[in-house]
């Protein structure tokens, strides 16, 4: 799986990772010197992204409302890294951007980062499947009384 991880998929998984999943890894890679000190291009900023939906009646777009996100950009010896994730956890956004840059720069630490992404993907797939199994248990075919 790590071989097939696109940059967007990695960003999605780093965004879906918990604080406890990505922050310790980023801190350890920095402490070990496996990842150089990044330049913070855009400090973690908490703000909103407007969720735009295309509705089915006229197929027009409308704004449903805004979603709280935190965004961060870094630069790792010339390779840019970026993270946007829901909520207001600035430390996790910084860690996500750092790990994104390290993987984009194809540093040796990429294997560890992609292993973490694989674990997140596995956790999400498991939760999704468990939820779907619970939901399908409520499948119904009502009978009409005649």
């Amino acid at each position, binding site marked *: 799986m790590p071989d097939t991880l696109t*940059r*967007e998929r990695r*960003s*999605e998984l780093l*965004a879906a990772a918990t604080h406890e999943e990505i922050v310790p890894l980023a801190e350890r890679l920095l402490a070990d010197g496996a990842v150089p000190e990044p330049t913070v291009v855009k400090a973690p*900023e*908490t*703000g*909103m*992204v*407007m*969720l*735009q*939906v*295309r*509705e*089915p*009646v*006229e*197929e*027009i*777009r*409308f*704004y*449903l*409302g*805004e*979603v*709280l*996100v935190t*965004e961060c*950009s870094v630069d790792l010896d010339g390779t*840019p890294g*970026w993270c*946007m*994730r*829901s*909520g*207001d956890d600035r430390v996790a956004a910084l860690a996500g951007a750092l790990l994104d840059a390290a993987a*984009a720069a194809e540093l040796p630490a990429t294997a560890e980062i992609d292993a973490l992404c694989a674990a997140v993907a596995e956790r999400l*797939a*498991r939760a*999704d*499947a*468990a*939820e*779907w*199994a*619970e*939901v*399908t*248990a*409520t*499948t*119904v*075919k*009502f009978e*009409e009384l005649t």
Partner: protein
Amino acid sequence: MGYSGVRGGQEAIAAAERLVREARFGGSSPWLELDQITRHLNLAVDRVSGEGGLWAPDLAARAIRQAQGDLLEAAQLLRAHRSTLPRLGYSLPVESAELTVVRRVSPAHRNPPGGQLLGRTDDYTPRILETEDTGDMGDTAPASHPSPSDSAASDAVSRSGARDLAAGLYEQGLLAGRHRGDDPEPYDITRAPARPGTPRSARLSALARAETGSLTHLWYVNAHNPLRGGAEIPLELRRGRLPLKVTHPHTGRPVTVARCPVTEARTVRSTDRPRPGGSRFDLGYGLCFGENEPKAVAMAGLDLLVHRDPHTEHLEQKVLIALDGPEASGFLEHLKLPHYVDFRSTIERVQAVRAAAGEAR
């Protein structure tokens, strides 16, 4: 008429606020954790998020706690907080078909393509006040945790994908297609007020932010109005999660950065008389943040009715102007502040008019 400022009373105001804080933080019961609110008062959190116009469950939980459970006040706190945050951008347009479903029912079709999934609901069971604190999950708890492979067996129902339950009505010519060829930019009600004559995108945004109780009420009085035509039946009601997708700044391709729980409804309503083109139904759409089924259904009903006839009883105007919780409660709250000057001047005006009338008599 307006609010005139007053001066003084600082000590009394501080003492009054202290009483509020004592009620909020004091007493023998421990302070509610945010986690308790987001997990166990989740419908309140979803409602406040929708009315505040910001999906941020932890902030909504904070607002509910600070407002001591007053959901209107909580939505106002969230809306005000929202105005302090920068807008980092706009998501890529997401379609209804991208909803990851956790519940999907069709009140109109017994056996719709894609199946009926009741999901988490107590719509079909008696709802009785439980007077004993058993914390009992009842006999509904699954005996074992389902494994991922179990889901593969369920092929009759589907997790996502568009199945247009209105397709049959279109094919029979009972519903006129309204798909637009152009792709207008959405109207942003957070930047410009929604007023009659603004595009439908403004109406949908205003309804999505509407105060749930007001929305339910406005829908209710109009749904029963004989002027509004035939019976309304929802084609489909769904809950699930929509992806928040943005453009990756370094690759230019879409990336999903978050998933937002939403409730969606599509409703149809017949007409009393056939129209020149032969169509006999109209279609309405509702979508709101979180789990809020009454809101989605009422929104779809009002979207439909405004499309059908925006002017009778100023329906479009009411939908756009009268349903915002923070606006309505803000106006009401301000009435409780000192209006001494206004009141005095009102009395003086009335007296002057009466005196003038007396002289004329």
